[in-house]
């Protein structure tokens, strides 16, 4: 399937899924459209319960699709799920490694179940042991692996048959920062080798660091889509952080003073730190400094930060992506910006 010269590995339209629940059905996915292009890392960002896993499970043929359509590598997911399974790799949120077996046994079995000969499976396993740096532990039983080692094995399992598209459901959840950074490096290396990856995450940094394009999902709907840069540009503002030094200007007074300036869109005070949302930082900052000089304000700190994906989430949903549990440069508590 080709649209605008770019080949889509995945194209989904109007996906829906509801589960029976007490007090009426739970609408987990409510009309999701997605496109993933060959060779890209596509991020699916959303808070807990947004519907990421449910969407993925429908695409991976694990859950029947209630409504809508999906094609993967040109194959209709509803009509020919068996063929789709041949073309995708799927690494679920809970894992999937067979713990009593060694990593290599896991890899070989996965390859052979996909129809590879013993020799071909062994070759492919060796390749993946290299790419994902499994060498140290691949011949040990998977039950003895650390969280990061297990996750790497699981990613390798998803890749044994060189799928057209690899689904990763929260690949780094539960990993410490060191292991997360390692896995990011390995995912980048896979991308460089041409693997197309669809990953879900509730970490903003992860989507920002890995995804070429991303969709933000909230309560079963895609609320924003684009490259991380595009999405941040939509927010259209940058944030200045100010902390007044000793002197007559209290943070409160500073806020009153700056609120009068035409280039300040919004302000928020947290403790003794003032956050301002301004337009184009490179042009506005000199005017801000001039205004501060005019009123003889001394500063302890001043810094400028680009909009983050959290700002995007906040703007599109009116809520902060707090579940992510990441520390952000700017605490997100700003009210919704009028578009």
């Amino acid at each position, binding site marked *: 399937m080709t649209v605008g010269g770019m080949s889509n590995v995945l194209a989904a339209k109007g996906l829906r899924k509801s589960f029976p629940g007490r007090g009426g059905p739970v609408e987990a996915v409510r009309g999701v459209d997605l496109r993933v292009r060959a060779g890209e890392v596509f991020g699916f960002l959303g808070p807990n319960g947004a519907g990421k896993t449910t969407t993925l*499970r429908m695409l*991976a*043929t*694990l*859950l029947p699709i209630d409504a809508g359509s999906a094609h993967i590598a040109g194959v209709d997911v509803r009509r020919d799920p*068996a063929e789709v*399974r*041949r073309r*995708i*790799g*799927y*690494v*679920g*949120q*809970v*894992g*999937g*490694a*067979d*713990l*009593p*077996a060694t990593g290599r*046994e896991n890899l070989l*079995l*996965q390859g*052979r*179940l*996909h*129809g590879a000969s013993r020799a071909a499976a062994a070759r492919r396993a060796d390749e993946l042991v290299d790419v994902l740096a499994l060498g140290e532990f691949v011949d040990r*039983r998977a039950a003895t692996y650390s969280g990061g080692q297990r996750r790497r094995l*699981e990613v390798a*399992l998803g890749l044994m048959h060189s799928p057209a598209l690899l689904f990763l459901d929260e690949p780094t959840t539960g990993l410490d920062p060191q292991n997360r950074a390692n896995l990011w490096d390995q995912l980048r290396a896979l991308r460089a080798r041409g693997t197309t990856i669809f990953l879900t995450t509730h970490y903003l940094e992860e989507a920002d660091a890995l995804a070429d394009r991303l969709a933000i999902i909230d309560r079963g709907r895609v609320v924003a889509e684009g490259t991380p840069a595009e999405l941040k540009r939509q927010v259209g503002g940058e944030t200045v952080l100010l902390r007044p030094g000793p002197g007559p200007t209290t943070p409160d007074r500073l806020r009153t003073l700056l609120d009068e300036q035409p280039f300040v869109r919004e302000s928020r005070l947290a403790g003794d730190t003032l956050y301002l949302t301004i337009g184009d930082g490179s042009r506005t900052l000199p005017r801000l400094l001039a205004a501060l000089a005019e009123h003889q304000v001394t500063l302890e700190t001043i810094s400028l930060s680009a909009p983050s994906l959290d700002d995007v989430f906040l703007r599109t949903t009116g809520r902060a992506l707090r579940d992510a549990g990441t520390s952000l440069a700017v605490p997100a508590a700003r009210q919704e910006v009028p578009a």
Partner: protein
Amino acid sequence: MTLLGQLRLLWWRKMLETLRAPVWVVMGLTTPLLYLALFAPLLRRLGGGPGFAHGGVLDTFIPGILVLMAFGSGMGAGWIVIDEVRTGVIERLRVTPVSRFALLLGSVLRDVVTFVVPALVVVVVSIPFGYHPHTAGTVLLLVLLCLVVAVTSAWSAALGITLRDIGSLAAVVTGLQLPLTLLSGILLPLSLAPGWLRGLAHVDPLYYAVQASRHLSAGDVADVAVATGFLVIAALAALTLVWATRCYRAATA
């Protein structure tokens, strides 16, 4: 890849799992040997009495013990499946082209092997103590009991994958195990039982397996109880395997 090829791979995965935890193999042997050592002596005096028509007591008792072993061998399958659902293994395998039937049968065949090996040990060990198994009959007996293992293994796996909770699975399995065992006449022949109990036994599929087993062990291969036993158990095996395969197909976690 052919169904047979898949089956071989999936069965071997399960065999490795068992071989690496030999404690289960040992446990599988201790129960029947304990029965032999601590329960069979109680029956000695009953030899020649009602219900023990064929010569030695062990000739009535050992086939029953073998049925008990077959019945127990498959029952653990559900626990393992719950673990595999929880760790995502089933889900991962379901996103491969592998046949769901092969997925189920891989673990059923492992249970068959872990039944047959200790069963042979029990047969051989009992011979010096006065067990007189008929050779061809015993081969057929083991075939019948492999079908019993298939029924319990597939049934337990299907329950595990459906209930997805160890507590509920344990409740169902243990709740059924005792009445089925008691009604089947495994420990003592039902010919000792009052009429109503003998009647009730006919709703227990295990009863037919036990009846057939005693005849097979004695070499009465042509007895109608043998044919009935095979019919009941084979039909049950077919039903259970179809149902369990469906459960594998629909499994969500």
